[in-house]
């Protein structure tokens, strides 16, 4: 399906499933899941090096980074200023200007700040970053971020790690209807049916972390999501049937046999 690529900031991808690298039980589980997911874009976080143990390896040391476009995030940043600072460190670290922007003041539901996110996005776009902002599924905010030059918008389905699926489906559909940049549903997806649904309604991609990393079998779940995303995308292209209130027979209504006896 070379004719159905996802393009973000002029870079094209065959996969519409992005995955995170947090919360795996082991580095091996992480590597196996990334492999099974078919993902080409992989998120990471930026954290202080443990100076008491600076040689410690992490799951990331096991990943073959030649295979992936690395997407550092600004998770943990509560303000625009902190996010801009972390973004600059991330660019220095990765040598890439791609950034998943997160400005999250709320520790309980980890919901993003529309004001701070827009401020940080404006700054970072000017500094040449390719900004993929994590946002509430607010169509007007999405429009502001697009106008600010963001490469995508990443509306949330439900709170990060909650596995509740897309409780913002209606809003996400409005965002998709209006968007001129790719729409990536991020956060809260719990199972491949959620991912398929996002793609079916026209989302360009999804980002999944907890649902894979915390599944009993992460690699198998990663494969499930890969299949679910492909299913949803193909269904979107195949043109689903309308929903109808009443039934519509699938077998012919004419020519039904009858056990008629002698006349």
């Amino acid at each position, binding site marked *: 399906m070379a004719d159905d690529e996802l393009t973000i900031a002029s870079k094209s991808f065959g996969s519409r499933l992005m995955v995170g690298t947090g919360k795996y039980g082991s580095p091996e589980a992480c590597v196996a899941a990334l492999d099974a997911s078919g993902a080409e874009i992989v998120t990471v*976080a930026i954290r202080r090096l443990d100076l008491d143990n600076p040689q410690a390896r992490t799951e990331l040391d096991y990943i073959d980074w030649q295979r992936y476009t690395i997407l550092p995030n600004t998770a943990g940043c509560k303000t625009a200023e902190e996010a801009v600072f972390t973004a600059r460190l991330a660019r220095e*670290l990765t040598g890439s200007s791609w950034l998943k922007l997160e400005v999250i003041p709320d520790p309980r539901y980890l919901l993003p700040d529309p004001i701070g996110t827009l401020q940080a996005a404006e700054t970072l776009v000017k500094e040449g970053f390719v900004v993929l902002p994590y946002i509430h599924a607010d169509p007007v905010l999405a429009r502001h971020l697009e106008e600010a030059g963001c490469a995508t918008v990443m509306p949330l389905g439900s709170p990060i790690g909650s596995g509740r699926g897309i409780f913002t489906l209606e809003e996400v559909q409005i965002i998709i209807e209006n968007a001129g940049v790719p729409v990536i549903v991020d956060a809260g997806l719990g199972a491949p049916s959620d991912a398929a649904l996002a793609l079916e309604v026209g989302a360009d991609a999804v980002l999944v972390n907890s649902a894979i990393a915390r599944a009993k079998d992460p690699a198998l779940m990663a494969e499930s999501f890969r299949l679910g995303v492909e299913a949803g995308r193909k269904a979107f292209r195949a043109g689903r049937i309308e929903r109808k209130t009443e039934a519509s027979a699938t077998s012919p209504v004419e020519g039904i046999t009858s056990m008629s006896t002698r006349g």
Partner: protein
Amino acid sequence: MNAGAITLTLNGKARALPGELTLPELLTTLGVDRRLIAIAVNGEIVARDRYESVALRDGDSVEVVRMVGGG
């Protein structure tokens, strides 16, 4: 460099050092592999190719970060 003992704030914790030193010297002291990190000094990011030019003085704050798993 200068002989007086200094205190730096490294990743948020105070650390006493025998005297002023350059950033590469600090990294060597700490045993840090500079290929895997990024550094900010006093809130300003230091580009990898400028480490040599940075001299650390008493009271400086240094952040040394790396990538970790995240979503």
